[in-house]
């Protein structure tokens, strides 16, 4: 009796939720510090490239490991980071493109996802006032979208701060979350990362406001042009009528 219900649960966990998407907002980028007195010709900066949750939450709920592919002049240019925080620190002098590959847990996806980030060490204003205190930070915001996740995955990530999970329509029932997972969630909250002070906070509010304003303008202009078109059509109608009828 017990076995059959367990089997049923396992089957349900694999079912895909149609027209549902969950997303994990991430920020990836680098932060670099000039080494000042300690800088040599080939080790002038210390930099860290990373992938983090947008609100500094723990991404390991979906991400299994992250692979950073560095410039071939680095020793072992393929660096794998197996646990959060998914970051890599190195020292050097050159800026180059880093290929970041996110590998997910098996219930999330079999295929990895690729990101590209251009490592920035030197500040935009090359006025030359380099300071050891000043850091150069370049971050990009993006969201990893998981389309039609399995029920098991949905249940697992529900409630986790790193993942945006929509409310399911009525009628869906999910298997309960095991107590183990809940515990793990509480433990791994890396709020004590020293780099946190430099992280940018991305807010969608600004962009949404601008977009809404822009849309209103465009809609107003569309209405105007439509009015003109109908007026012209009206003119044409008049002109087509023979003079006797006017």
């Amino acid at each position, binding site marked *: 009796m017990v076995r059959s219900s367990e089997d049923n649960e396992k089957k349900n966990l694999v079912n895909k939720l149609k027209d549902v998407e969950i*997303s994990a*907002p991430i920020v990836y980028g680098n932060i670099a510090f000039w080494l000042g007195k300690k800088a040599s*010709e*080939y080790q002038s900066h210390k930099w860290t490239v990373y992938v983090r949750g947008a609100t500094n939450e723990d991404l390991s709920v979906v991400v299994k490991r992250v692979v950073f592919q560095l*410039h*071939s*002049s*680095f*020793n072992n240019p393929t660096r794998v980071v197996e646990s959060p925080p998914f970051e890599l620190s190195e020292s*050097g*002098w*050159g800026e180059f493109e880093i290929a970041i590959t996110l590998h*997910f847990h098996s219930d*999330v*996806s079999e*295929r990895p*996802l690729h*990101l590209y980030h251009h490592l920035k060490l030197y500040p935009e204003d090359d006025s030359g006032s380099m300071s050891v205190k000043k850091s150069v930070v370049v971050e990009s*915001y*993006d*969201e*990893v*979208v*998981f*389309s*039609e996740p399995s029920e098991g995955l949905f249940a697992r990530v529900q409630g986790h701060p790193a993942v*945006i999970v929509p409310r399911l329509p009525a009628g869906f029932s999910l298997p309960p979350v095991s107590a183990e997972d809940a515990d793990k969630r509480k433990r791994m909250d890396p709020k004590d990362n020293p780099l946190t002070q430099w992280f940018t906070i*991305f*807010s*969608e509010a*600004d*962009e*949404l406001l*601008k*977009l*809404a*304003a*822009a*849309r*209103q*303008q*465009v*809609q*107003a*202009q*569309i209405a*105007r*042009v*439509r*009015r*003109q*078109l109908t*007026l*012209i*059509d009206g*003119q*044409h109608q008049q*002109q087509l009528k023979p003079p006797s009828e006017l």
Partner: protein
Amino acid sequence: MDAKDILGLPKNSLPIPPEKKSRPQKDSQRKPDGISREVYALTGGVPPPLMPSLDVNQLKKRQKTENEKITWEWLSFTSSARKDDLKLYHWVRVVNGTPPTGDYSFAKYNKSVDVIKYTDEEYEKHLTDPMIILLCQEWTKEETDELFELCERFDLRFVVIADRFSTSRSVEELKNRYYSVSRTILIARAPSPADVSGHPLVKDPYNISQEVDRKRALSMVLSQTKHQERKDAEVLSEAKKIMETRMAAKAAQDAELADTSNASPERMEKAAAAAETASPSNIQATSGVAPLMSIAENAAAAAASLRTLKVYLRTYALDQMVQAASSSAGLRTIKRVEQFLQELKVNLKPKVPTKAVCAEHLELRKEILTLLNLQKLLQTKEEGSSYREVSYTETPDTPKGLHCVIDQDRTFVPDSVSFRAISTERVGKRDQKRKGPGREAPSSPAQSNKRPRKLKATDS
């Protein structure tokens, strides 16, 4: 070696790992040949492009033949390609005293065409030409004989043959006579018609009228003016669009998109029917309708492809949807949309691409496309109406340099609306090259603060 053994030192010195570590990093990031790093930075971190030098290893090694003695001798030779016994001389590579044997190496290239030779009886039986082709006379035996002799001599190069032919015949006529004669002889000589039915001469006979037409058409295309070329290109692109919408309608029916496929095939049929009347205004209307149809299908296809991906980045998804939405727009239109976005102070790629932001961005782009299409439509309608109006009235605020069309419309349109329409037209169509004198400034003093007015959200 023995000394080292005695002293107890290791035979090979140990490699020094740390030096090697830093050196490779130095070398490849530095890129060799003693250019200092600062110079490197000037050129942008990449060496100035040079031709890659030849790697010596890639070149073939010279084959040294030490066991043979090679001399070169000036010897005579004959060629089987010649009918006489002319002896010519050339340098020959002699190996170990024995000259090479064999025919002249280029003799094998002496190929010629097998031109059919008919006898006189055959001529009288089959080939006397009863037909009078086009304007000229029929073919006499002398002419036919001459033709065949020239064909043999010049290897069927009809242009040369036409040049040398005694009577003036066109290339098509010569070809026609030659091929029809050859065909007739072939069929006549064959034991049964079935034997020769596979022969290319029999299978595809020369069609003189088709050839004449084809060459005429080619010469017309070659001598087309630029104006005509453009017109042709436009008509072809309209036709292509209509074909594509029909294809898309078919694809939509096959796919499992119930809503779009229900609506679009009916509209597709009407659009297709309208298009077949082939009048310009109809083509305009259907091309207006058709892109909207194809956009719906493209968007659905893009969404489906994203769903199959399962895991993707939202920026990637936005790119796909933007591409799908602009699929019917040309490159110029896409650039204008981007210009518009920049004027509205909106990022071309959102800095914070959340679900809501991406959706809004996509909708905004679609609306801008709609606006641009409507403006284009308005422009063509105004151009159409300019031919109808004769008088044009001047309102006090109108500078003289304005386009006549807009002035004429003003008599029917209230001032406020028309002014703003012009300003939006002007702003939206900045890359239009239709500039008259004195048009740089805003249309009237009252509109001097055009820019800030445009940016207000409530601008009715």
